[in-house]
């Protein structure tokens, strides 16, 4: 089978070439995640632009260099969006390679579920396709899952097909002073529940009637423009650890925990996570198999992600 790679992809592959250390820069919003590019690494950029949005398929084909916010503006015309987080200038490829979910993960799902197909440049400079152009597919090994969160160390993504989701009829952020996060978590329309040790913020998303019902269940609350300001460091915890974060890691107001998800935004960086030796060894084997010369994004390692 010969895949139909367009000119932008072919040019991207040519730019990446077959050898020499190379890294891809997106919006640079998570540029130091998992380490910094080794000195002397050539920097390239992925092509940009929305290729095809199919509202009735709930998919969009988009080039990796496209800013997520720009993609979402186009999708909004069809009442849809993706699970990718919008960061200032952050790109589709960058969001996928970082693998960090949006703050509305309860509603949108994790980033890894968004990627249906990837066209990427392998370590030897050839173009490959992972996944299928359909919303459901189990044909062969799931290389797409492996690429999400890989920091571009296994292949350099040029174009992707993403699953889209409908935007809720209504979306409202509310703040509940001194509330119990569990009540907000039990709301069916809760797309995000945040807790700073004292107050709770919730994003309610869905049909107006359901959001209203959840609001009445929540009791007195204040409608706000958005989430609270998030401290700079992102911790990946279990949902139980996130819910108990205040007791273990300090005072209210110094962190914001995503309840039901496990991400905690904290003032301090997360201490290095312990990875069992067997899992670390598997990570090394994947890197060695997919990039034997170690030329793709050298210096960066998903095991070193906070």
């Amino acid at each position, binding site marked *: 089978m010969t895949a139909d790679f367009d000119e932008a992809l072919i040019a991207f592959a040519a730019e990446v070439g077959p050898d020499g250390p190379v890294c891809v820069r997106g919006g640079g919003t998570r540029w130091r995640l998992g380490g910094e590019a080794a000195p002397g690494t050539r920097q390239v950029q992925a092509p940009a632009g929305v290729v095809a949005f199919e509202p*009735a398929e709930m998919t969009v084909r988009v080039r990796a260099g496209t800013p997520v916010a720009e993609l979402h503006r186009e999708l909004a015309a069809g009442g849809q969006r993706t699970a990718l987080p919008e960061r200032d200038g952050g790109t589709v490829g960058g969001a996928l390679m970082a693998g960090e979910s949006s703050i509305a993960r309860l509603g949108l799902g994790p980033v890894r579920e968004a990627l249906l197909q990837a066209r990427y440049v392998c370590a030897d400079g050839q173009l490959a396709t992972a996944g299928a152009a359909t919303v459901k597919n*189990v044909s062969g090994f799931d290389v797409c*899952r492996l690429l999400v969160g890989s920091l571009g160390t296994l292949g350099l993504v040029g174009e992707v097909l993403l699953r889209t989701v409908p935007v809720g009829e209504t979306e409202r952020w509310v703040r509940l002073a001194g509330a119990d996060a569990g009540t907000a978590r039990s709301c069916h329309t809760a797309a995000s529940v945040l807790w700073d040790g004292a107050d709770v913020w919730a994003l309610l998303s869905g049909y107006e009637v359901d959001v209203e*019902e959840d609001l009445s269940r929540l009791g007195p609350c204040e409608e706000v423009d958005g989430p609270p300001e998030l401290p700079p460091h992102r911790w*990946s915890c279990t949902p*139980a650890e996130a819910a108990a974060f205040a007791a273990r890691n300090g005072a209210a107001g110094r962190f914001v925990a995503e309840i039901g998800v496990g991400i905690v935004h904290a003032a301090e960086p997360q201490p290095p996570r312990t990875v069992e030796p067997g899992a670390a060894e598997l990570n090394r084997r994947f890197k060695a198999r997919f990039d034997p010369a170690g030329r793709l994004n050298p210096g960066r390692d998903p095991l070193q992600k906070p």
Partner: protein
Amino acid sequence: MAGTLAAATRRVLGSRRRGDRSGSVPSNDPADAALVADLVEAIGADRVRADAAARYLASRDASIYREGNAGPVCYPGSTDDVAACVRVANRHGRAVSPRGAGTGLAGGAAPLGRPVVLSMTRMDELVEIDFDNGVAWVQPGVVNLDLTRALAPHGVHYAPDPSSQAACTIGGNVANNSGGPHCLAYGVTSAHVVAIEVVLSDASVVTLGDLSAEPAGYDLRGAFVGSEGMCGIATKVAVRLTRNPPAVRTMLLCFSDVSDAAATVSAIIAAGIVPAAIEMLDQRCVIAVEDFAQAGYPRDAAAVLLVEVDGASGGVEIAAARVAEIAERNQAMSVRTAADDDERARLWKGRKSAFGAVANVMPDYYLHDTVVPRTRLVEVLESIYEIVDRHDLIVLNVFHAGDGNLHPILAYDSREPGADERVHAAGREIIEMSLDMGGALTGEHGVGVEKRDHMHRMFSAVDLDQQSRLRASFDPYCRMNPGKVLPSAHSCSDIGSLRASDAAGVWG
């Protein structure tokens, strides 16, 4: 679900007759004596069988593939047992093939080259329900529906619901990345598996993924799910608990024209409604189902859609009303909404009994599984009818229309001369047509051996090489369930491993 009981019996007897003639299935293969003795020493005599009956049962799954060939069959009771079996197999230079309930439809659990077979069905404990983290830890032999039943008192369930859910196991679901009707809104197995304890081909035990929001390193859990037993053996799985929706509305939409039904599917999705399920049955399937299960589907409908919307009660009302409106705009003959749980169960009974109903039509069937873009259902169904007519076969279509996952059932009588060949020829054409429409080889049944040699139709040599790297990262020596998924040019080591163990085996 291997066709009718009569057909299954005929196959059993047929194979035995063949076996007697060649004498190739002795009750205790002397060549395996040392291997069996070591397995017995490792995990105990009550957990190892090498007789012809056990090996015969472990040689097949629910597909029509009949060339599987099991070595000794082990029934491990723990992770340690699994690791011990893998160690013994390695020492004897033998591959290992795990299996769950054997309900797979692509030959994925049909062992090739007389490997040591690990039947995981005795590891069937629900280990722990961890509400704080929203997961349940289960052993791989837990039956899908048993898990959902065990969770029911807690107001949660396990979302993937394959048609075989009353028999299939969580381990098998992980191997095949199984789907089901409700995966339209909730996602397939991969979205519901958080962490997996696995035994790798070197007998080491490692946990892939963890309960944290974003585990460090590569998504090894994601890479493992759907790997059809070729990357290791799952021994404990953390599955996500899904809250039961507060409200559910199940509707039957009937159409006098298949294309109106298909247009309704596209229009529902385009309207931003993601129902929990959208299932389609065509007329022949409706009639078979009515003859068999009396679900109350109208026999004169060219196609029916079973649509289920769920969520909070207000939104469910709105979504159901919009679905009805869309159906009426697309010339629906009737729109019926289940009034209560009984009626809802009856509507689903029709869908769920479709495969049993085929037995009234023909003694054998071949169930296909491809995916097409959901906006192209009309063209695709027309092509299927054309292909099947040309090969003088009967087709019943019952499938997950919402995500474009086709399940044409080719019904036939294998006693008719040439019937098998016609079924295979039509199947090949359906696969090729689906790919030409921009689709995928398989949506939920997996590749196994059935579609292995079609993989190059969907993927380039470079793509397949990338996939083989994923597999080799887990299992460098290709000792886990060899010979599946990747065409032989991309799994040379598999062939080596198969030949080493069984010179007269499947490749002979």
